[in-house]
């Protein structure tokens, strides 16, 4: 029982990342009809927003410490962050420590801008082109974006830790009456799960309860009629692209303490997120979220050594097996709508 609870918990944060990326993908597909293979790159750019803010906060000047020497035997150059000069060492370190949460605010305008530029500058020229063309161009864009990031930040992962206050893990087991240390879950992953629930809830509320959202939903259902009513649906869809980019970017920002960001982290999530979208049902927002959590939890279960002992290698293929099974029994996915991607 404890092992099952543990793997459900593990699946939640993994599922959170899948759900957030798949949500953005579905938003773009549902509004613009574009299959965006650059969406993983947006997740990666979000993560690098956190890296960038960390670097800005730790911008330093050097002072020479004559007491110590560097690796060549020269007097050691010690880097002192400017923020220490501005706020003092204690307060400065506190701000640096909170770089990742602060990056959420930093990333929102950047990601919206990246999304809008991407849509206006490239994607819009491919609306009427076949999906294969869209996949090729967005996949190419993803490669360009990750190579740009590699050029500026290198190929190695860059540690971007969570604030000190969120280090360590919560002993769920002790709280639930199990033995101590049996069910543990890191504090930051709890934060990540909570954050993703807020973002997902926020996107649904935005679409459900605002006029803007109502128009977008109407446009998703019947773009031509909304246009005939004199509403500039294209402009709204461009904004939705920006919002979808921001959702992916924020997922990336908050993911950085879980795994040190690197330039190809977007690709690691991209294929799985597409599977999530297909399993959830193309164009279905609740389907994307449901499938994200479902597949995240299943992936965690498949990683249990008791299961690997029975079916070796199941941990590497479980998501695809489940996807095949669901698509065989429900060709439109869990919550897919009739007519979407069926023409």
């Amino acid at each position, binding site marked *: 029982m404890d092992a099952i609870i543990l793997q459900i918990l593990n699946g939640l944060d993994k599922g959170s990342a899948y759900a957030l990326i798949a949500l953005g993908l579905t938003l773009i597909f549902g509004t613009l009809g574009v299959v965006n293979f650059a969406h993983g790159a947006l997740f990666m750019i979000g993560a690098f927003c956190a890296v960038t803010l960390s670097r800005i906060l730790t911008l330093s000047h050097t002072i020479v410490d004559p007491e110590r020497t560097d690796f060549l035997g020269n007097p050691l150059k010690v880097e002192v962050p400017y923020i220490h000069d501005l706020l003092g060492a204690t307060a400065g370190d506190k701000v640096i420590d909170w770089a990742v949460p602060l990056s959420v605010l930093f990333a929102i305008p950047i990601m919206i801008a990246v999304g809008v530029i991407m849509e206006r500058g490239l994607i819009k020229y491919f609306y009427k082109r076949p999906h294969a063309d869209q996949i090729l161009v967005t996949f190419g864009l993803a490669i360009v974006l990750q190579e740009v990031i590699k050029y500026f930040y290198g190929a190695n992962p860059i540690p971007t830790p969570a604030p000190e206050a969120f280090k360590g893990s919560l002993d769920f087991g002790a709280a639930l009456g199990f033995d101590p240390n049996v069910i543990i879950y890191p504090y930051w992953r709890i934060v990540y799960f909570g954050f993703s629930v807020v973002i997902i809830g926020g996107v649904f509320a935005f679409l459900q309860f605002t006029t803007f959202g109502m128009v977008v939903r109407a446009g998703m259902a019947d773009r031509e009629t909304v246009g005939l009513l004199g509403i500039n649906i294209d402009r709204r869809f461009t904004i939705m692209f920006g919002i979808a980019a921001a959702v992916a970017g924020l997922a990336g920002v908050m993911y950085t303490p879980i795994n040190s960001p690197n330039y190809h982290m977007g690709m690691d999530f991209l294929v799985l997120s597409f599977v999530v979208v297909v399993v959830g049902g193309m164009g279905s927002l609740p389907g994307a979220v449901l499938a994200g959590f479902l597949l995240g939890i299943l992936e*965690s279960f498949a990683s249990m050594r008791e299961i690997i002992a029975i079916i070796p290698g199941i941990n590497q293929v479980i998501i695809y097996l489940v996807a095949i099974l669901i698509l065989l029994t429900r060709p439109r996915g869990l919550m897919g709508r009739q007519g979407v991607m069926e023409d």
Partner: protein
Amino acid sequence: MSKTTLTRRGLIKSGAIGSAGLALPTIFTAQSAHAFTNEPTGSTVTLGFNVPQTGPYADEGADELRAFELAVEHLNGGGDSGMLSTFSSKVLQGNGILGKKVSYVTGDTQTKSDAARASAKSMIEKDGAVMISGGSSSGVAVAVQALCQEAGVIFMAGLTHSNDTTGKDKRANGFRHFFNSYMSGAALAPVLANAYGTDRKAYHLTADYNWGYTTEEAVRSSTEAMGWETVAAVKTPLTQTDFSSYIAPVLQSGADTLVLNHYGGNMVNSLTNAVQFGLRDKQVNGKDFQIVVPLYSRLMAKGAGANVKGIYGSTNWHWSLSDAGSKAFVKSFGTKYGFPPSQAAHTCYVQTLLYADAVQRAGSFAPCAVAEALEDFEFDGLGNGKTLYRGTDHQCFKDVIVVKGAENPTSSFDLLEVVEVTPVDQITYEPDHPQFAGGALGTCNNGV
């Protein structure tokens, strides 16, 4: 007056002898022009440096390339001569190799076996490379080593740690300076027993490929020989990025030590996840929970950040070593590039010097002559103390460095501290050791 009788048989005989006579010099010339693959005939000799220039190991590849450039500079008489001044063999004079100026071409392995073979093949066939070196993975090393064997050029392996490179996949044309999984296990186990005791329960997470298997086997057998018990060993996919579902059950298993048989991005992520789960703050079986990383690299340690603090591992070489060779290399490299070299850079630099030295001593670039010069060659002054290039398997035997994540690093280079330099005797094994079983060195190939 003599009488000449021309018969048909006589004409054929004379023609055959005459033809053979005319052809003889051509045969000799042809043989000497192509005595071995890519025999250098001009005033330069070309070496091929095959490193990951793209992909996740690109930073390590860039460091290897810097070291190769430095080695070429020193061989051609430039710079401060680096380790040439400390190398026990004194045949290299800074005038190239056998009087030929050293030039080089580079290839991109992408850390993929097929891409690495393609780039090595191109350097051999199109650029005339007489030796191939570099690489950052055992899969690549084994693939390129086999290619070099077929092509008839020498392969001086870069960073490759799997036992198989000089075990079941060894080749007569391939040579490895870098240490291997067995040596890591043999060096680490006594240090771990000393630090954490002999009554430990270990849980292994192992990257699901060749290097992971040999490392797990080596560390398991060494630690079990010290009294540790292995409670579980779980293989993790090479493409895994989030290891939470593998790490969370560790405490349930009753293990008090986690061994991460991971390298590169796998190691950065699994270690980060393990620390995140607070494993190091836990007490199991009345002991503090510990994590071990059998193969460390400074570049990787940088990716894991503060998570490496206090965690033991092993390394082929470290820039903080105080022997004359290491100091000379760090000075050369640090002055040229502004930061200390990695272990990957060190092994690539040393392999280039060792190749050049062997050619010089052999008096020939012919792979079989070079191989003979390298086999059972004993040397010193290249950073790991007295070293033997064993002839039976082409593996270098030298001291191994046990390191620990620095508690209070003073710079971004100062992430690991040397705990012990394990003497070569402690990590030497017989050529027929079970961990190296299978395969045969075969005979060297001059190509052509």
